[in-house]
């Protein structure tokens, strides 16, 4: 059972009709994906956008990340990205990964988790290199699991 379907965007996979887009800072774009452009003082981050059409059985979404395309991918979001209970079946989601290092390339994908608790791959793998162009502030130690 497919609990949700992509709508629009990049990196389409399988039967999904949508995709996952990322933006990253430093080097912010005008995309809504990026935070306000104050790169010199902003820590690096990766922002994921996705848009889905839920089919009534989706509880939420899980974001996975790896530093290698082949994995292993490890879950990044501690709290499940919830599907709004608003009676609407098309939603856009934004999730920000703040535990990233400038100059490092990351790979992401998204799972849907059904109301029955079963996980299902929703997106393909998307790659993002966090630009080293602007030096990020000294990193502060992240707790295990980063910003989860």
């Amino acid at each position, binding site marked *: 059972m497919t609990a949700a379907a992509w709508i629009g965007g990049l990196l389409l996979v399988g039967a999904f009709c949508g995709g996952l887009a990322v933006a990253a800072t430093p080097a912010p774009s005008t995309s809504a994906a990026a935070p306000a452009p104050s790169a010199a003082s902003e820590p690096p981050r990766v922002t994921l956008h996705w848009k889905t059409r839920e089919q009534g059985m989706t*509880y939420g979404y899980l974001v*996975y990340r*790896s530093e*290698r395309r*082949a*994995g*292993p*991918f*490890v*879950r990044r979001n501690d*709290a*499940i990205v919830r599907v709004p209970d608003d009676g609407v079946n098309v939603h856009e989601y934004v999730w920000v990964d703040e535990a990233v290092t400038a100059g490092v390339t990351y790979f992401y994908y998204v799972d849907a*988790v*059904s*109301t*029955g*608790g*079963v*996980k299902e791959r929703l997106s393909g793998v998307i790659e993002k290199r966090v630009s080293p162009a602007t030096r990020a502030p000294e990193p502060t130690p992240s707790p*295990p699991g980063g910003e989860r």
Partner: protein
Amino acid sequence: MLLPAAPPARAAAQDAPAAEPGSAGIECSPRTASFEAYQHETAVVRFTCTNRGARAARITKVEPRGAGAWATGAPRALAVGESATFEVHQPLANALGATSYRVGISTDEPNQPIVRVSLAGFVQSAYEPERGGLDLGWVDAAVGKEITFELVSREVERVEVTGVEGLPTFISLAAAGRAGEADQGVRLLARMAPGAPLGSFAATAKISTNVPRQPRYDLTLIGNVFGDVVPSVNPLALGIVRLGQPAQGAVELRSRSARAVEVKGTDLTGSEQLAVIVGACASPGPDCARLQLVGRPAAIGGAQGKLTVKLAGGATVPLDWSMWVVAADTHIKTIDVLPTPAPSPPR
């Protein structure tokens, strides 16, 4: 080894609906407390009850209805306008997905003997498959059996098994390599040793791992162990039976070595209304015996038990049976689905 204690689940209280004017004296909120947790955690939520009546009242009992749940804070007397908070602890065990549990708060208010509240939340698994089940199928007692199971968690880079508990001595379960993408998971080898007790079995392996948020995973193993004499089915399901109507089911016992199968006696547990009739198989021969369970059940509900068949020579064949008895006028829906063939016993 001891399993690490499950951490309490995070809980968040939803806003309760506004109190109804003129409603009974004790109001509890939230009506539904929400939580999000992992399997084997304990959801902990709080309910606050306020005496909005005109006289003192008493919370006599807070009774969570979920399995293994308990509450703190009661009994408690409440003066007019006074509030008290009760904490409900609900072990989640192997629940999965959206789930809810009821809680009854008893009072000494004659018009409001019980206030009903609930916990509603989402239980996630840190593993795939989210629920563990492994069917060993038919197992020759003289040979034993081995079967593998792949356990993956994408909550860590590499799952490691640190312990297994809960299995009978004739079944072992151990890591036997890597599994999954990028070797993130672990391949487990379940091994049933030769000489296991005959009959059906079900056991749950409590697997300890290095996954911080859910360091325990339950894997249920089932199967049927047979000797020389093999039953055609086990368990013997008599299906749904209407009260007052006959229940019946049959099983054939056949010797794999073509020895004579002579039934010397049977021992049936679980029902006073069922009897065992011994007869010839559809393909008659001395190496086969047919047993029929027949009777008219006298009570509505599920019933199950054991049928132990004693053979000449001292061997026994343990079988399980079950049925579900409904009222005579119950409408039984027939669902149009493809039949799932049961695995055939070995010949």
